[in-house]
């Protein structure tokens, strides 16, 4: 070869192509269907994997370089945070309950996303989607770990997060986020990509991840804010992937459109139900609020999501029908959720409280159509009762929705005075639902949703007591036994914020750090 002849210089796109799809080949010693066994059963038709447009062109050497730089910065901030008692800089100790909710409810999901994207990446025969999925799998373990590392220092000083992995697999309300991700990862690889890659990462991320990070920034939580900002460029990549997945599947075959539409409908609703936790966090748990749940739904879903679905209309995809019901619920969602957690504060791993007068004013300004009429009177009554020493803790277990697993607390669309109940008979058993949408999801795949591990059913069946518990002995206290099973310490991890050790310690430590006593 004559080396003096100038070599053809590859363009960025061609160079990336030889670095990824050029590596692939069509096997001949094993059959494609044996190597990729999970790719056909969902009914999605892919004719040409090469039509996949790489949403970003990142080779591994560049990935390592950028990501290591971000990790170095992040961990130096976390070290400084620890050294300086950064936990004392949060607005007030109530904020810590957001951290508990995040660590036990959301961080474990990042881990499931990591394993799920490894699975999807392994199963897609196309090198383009495989590389994108595996890179996301690697990012997701980053997010799970940086979150644990960021919150680790809070755990040293505050209650409720000391056994969060154990809690995530057991505590009643945590089955809501857990079952959501279990649902996604047990679906086929294409549905997984639509549920997590598109619906969760693309459509809903501004309503989930962003409110926590903005909440952290507004409330002086440098640790959570830093991992949030550090994850931002990863999230941007994931959003691009989510959108590319949808477009790719839709462009491959018209038969894919109705399947994808059903998945978008399902996962928008499933995702929205999980956002119930975020809604109450935004309206009640952040001492300094970024915006109301209603405002954020209007901006990020109704406006931005509306534009997205207009864009997808050319593929025949419509705005999910559930959006209409969500619009009707937006004046009520966070209030109904907070009321429930206020009730069940004895069985949760974080504290609840009644909003103070200023906060009530904020709520009535943000929710002029509903707050003063429906929720303020309730809160005033509970506040009075608490002042008299009758802080109410509900110890009767609620009925759960078979699909979203949230207690049946939501009201009829359009009638906020009437609880919404739906039911289905299936193979001799009765199943209950919070809404038409959860009911429809069940009816499409009943064999899947009958398997749900419903915390209330499990408690009543005696499956949520420590081993060796005898519930028939005189004076048996089921709540105490369930808390033991959750590994929550009564009086420290649960109950009202007002009587909490967190409140007392925070005040004392802040005094110690700022005064000469």
């Amino acid at each position: 070869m004559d080396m003096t002849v100038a070599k053809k210089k590859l363009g960025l796109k061609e160079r990336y192509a030889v670095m990824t799809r050029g590596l692939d080949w069509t096997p001949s010693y094993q059959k494609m269907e044996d190597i990729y066994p999970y790719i056909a059963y969902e009914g999605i038709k892919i004719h040409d994997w090469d039509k996949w447009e790489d949403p970003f062109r990142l080779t591994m050497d560049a990935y390592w370089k950028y990501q290591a730089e971000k990790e170095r910065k992040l961990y130096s901030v976390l070290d400084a945070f620890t050294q300086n008692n950064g936990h004392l800089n949060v607005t007030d100790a109530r904020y810590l309950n957001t951290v508990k909710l995040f660590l036990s409810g959301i961080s474990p999901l990042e881990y499931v996303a990591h394993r799920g994207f490894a699975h999807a990446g392994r199963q897609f025969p196309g090198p383009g989607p495989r590389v994108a999925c595996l890179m996301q799998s690697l990012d997701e373990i980053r997010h799970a770990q940086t979150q644990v590392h960021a919150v680790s220092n809070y755990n040293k000083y505050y209650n409720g997060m000391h056994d969060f992995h154990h809690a995530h697999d057991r505590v009643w309300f945590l089955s809501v986020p857990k079952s959501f991700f279990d649902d996604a990862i047990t679906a086929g690889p294409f549905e997984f990509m639509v549920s997590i890659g598109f619906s969760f990462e693309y459509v809903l991320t501004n309503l989930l991840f962003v409110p926590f990070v903005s909440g952290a920034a507004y409330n002086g939580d440098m640790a959570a804010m830093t991992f949030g900002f550090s994850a931002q460029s990863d999230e941007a990549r994931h959003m691009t992937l989510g959108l590319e997945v949808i477009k790719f599947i839709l462009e491959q075959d018209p038969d894919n459109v109705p399947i994808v539409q059903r998945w978008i409908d399902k996962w928008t609703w499933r995702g929205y139900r999980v956002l119930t936790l975020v809604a109450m966090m935004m309206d009640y748990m952040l001492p300094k609020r970024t915006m109301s749940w209603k405002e954020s739904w209007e901006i990020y879903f109704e406006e931005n999501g509306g534009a997205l679905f207009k864009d997808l209309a050319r593929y025949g995809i419509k705005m999910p029908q559930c959006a209409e019901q969500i619009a009707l619920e937006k004046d009520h969602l966070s209030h109904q959720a907070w009321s429930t957690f206020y009730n069940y504060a004895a069985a949760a791993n974080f504290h609840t409280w009644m909003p103070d007068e200023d906060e009530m004013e904020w709520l009535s300004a943000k929710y002029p159509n509903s707050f003063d009429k429906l929720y303020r009177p309730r809160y005033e009554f509970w506040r009075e009762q608490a002042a008299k020493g009758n802080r109410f803790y509900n110890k009767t277990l609620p009925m759960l929705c078979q699909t979203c697993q949230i207690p049946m607390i939501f009201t009829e669309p359009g009638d906020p005075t009437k609880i919404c109940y739906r039911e289905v008979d299936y193979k001799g058993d009765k199943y209950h639902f919070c809404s038409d949408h959860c009911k429809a999801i069940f009816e499409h795949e009943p064999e899947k949703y009958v398997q749900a591990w419903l915390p209330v059913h499990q408690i009543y069946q005696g499956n949520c007591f420590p081993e060796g518990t005898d519930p028939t002995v005189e004076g048996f206290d089921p709540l105490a036994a369930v808390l033991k099973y959750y590994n929550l310490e009564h009086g420290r991890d649960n109950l009202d914020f007002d009587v909490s050790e967190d409140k007392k310690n925070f005040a004392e430590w802040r005094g110690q750090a700022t005064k000469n006593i």
Partner: protein
Amino acid sequence: MQIDLRTVTIKPLRHTFDNIARRIGGDKPASRYQEGTLDMQQTANFHYRPTWDPAHDIYDASRSSIKMADWYAFKDPRQFYYGAYTMARAKQQDTAEANFDFVENRGLAATLPEAVRDTALKLLVPLRHVAWGSNMNNASICAYSYGTGFSQPHIFHSMDQLGIAQYLTRVGLLLGDVASLDEGKRAWMDDDAWQGLRRYVEDSFVVKDPVELFVVQNVVLDGLMYPLVYETIVDDVLASKGGTAVAMLTQFMTDWFAETKKWADATVKIAAAESAENKEIMTKWLTAWRDRAAAALLPVARIALGDRTDELMGEVVQQFNARMAKAGVAI
């Protein structure tokens, strides 16, 4: 003389999470590797069975015939969590980048003896496909194995192999051009020399047991191929013929193998030491796949080693057997 900086000290309520304390023998400060690894994978009360594998739970130890009382017995001696991992690789890629620049800027590719460049291209370029296969296999192990102690290093390994496939692509482009990549792929698909290895790789794609796949790919195939290709052929044989520049371009792989084999050895050792049954299974897998891999690599080795192929391949296999014996499995 020491300076005495004063900070406000607040006595913490606890030093780590309960699950970590249970595993490290009490409430004491834990490392980031420990807090980022132990019990990260969910273990209880799964809601639904995978529609793609209804016989198993989402995470299910019974996907492997290796049985462990506690899958967190598997520990990564490198203590790699994401941060430690990317920082280690970023450093290595800095070195690799400097090496590529050095070779490129001084025109060293052009000064390579024709025969050395030819051999390097013939041998190294098809190996990008082997690395790509390993990327997929390690994704598979990460997805379907049990416990983060075991699964986590495999996502790192998977992406390392993608990186290696990309470095090999760059070697092909630097010593040759795009046509060299096409030629490498053609050889991979059609030439007799590569068919045994391609069959081995494609057969590994249908291995379902994640621990077996770890053995097939990361212990056996890499355990024979890396010493053969990068230590014996590139660093010794080609270097002695004026091919030091090639060794610079593959330094990442040499260093990577030296690092990762410590983890692979520790993993083999822990699995085999658990029980007589495990040891028997590991021995069976290691022996059967070693024989297949050694046979598949022989014609590949011949591309560079000619008459000395049998002798040097024999040495590589001997070294591998000794390595496994040290890890507790005599084969």
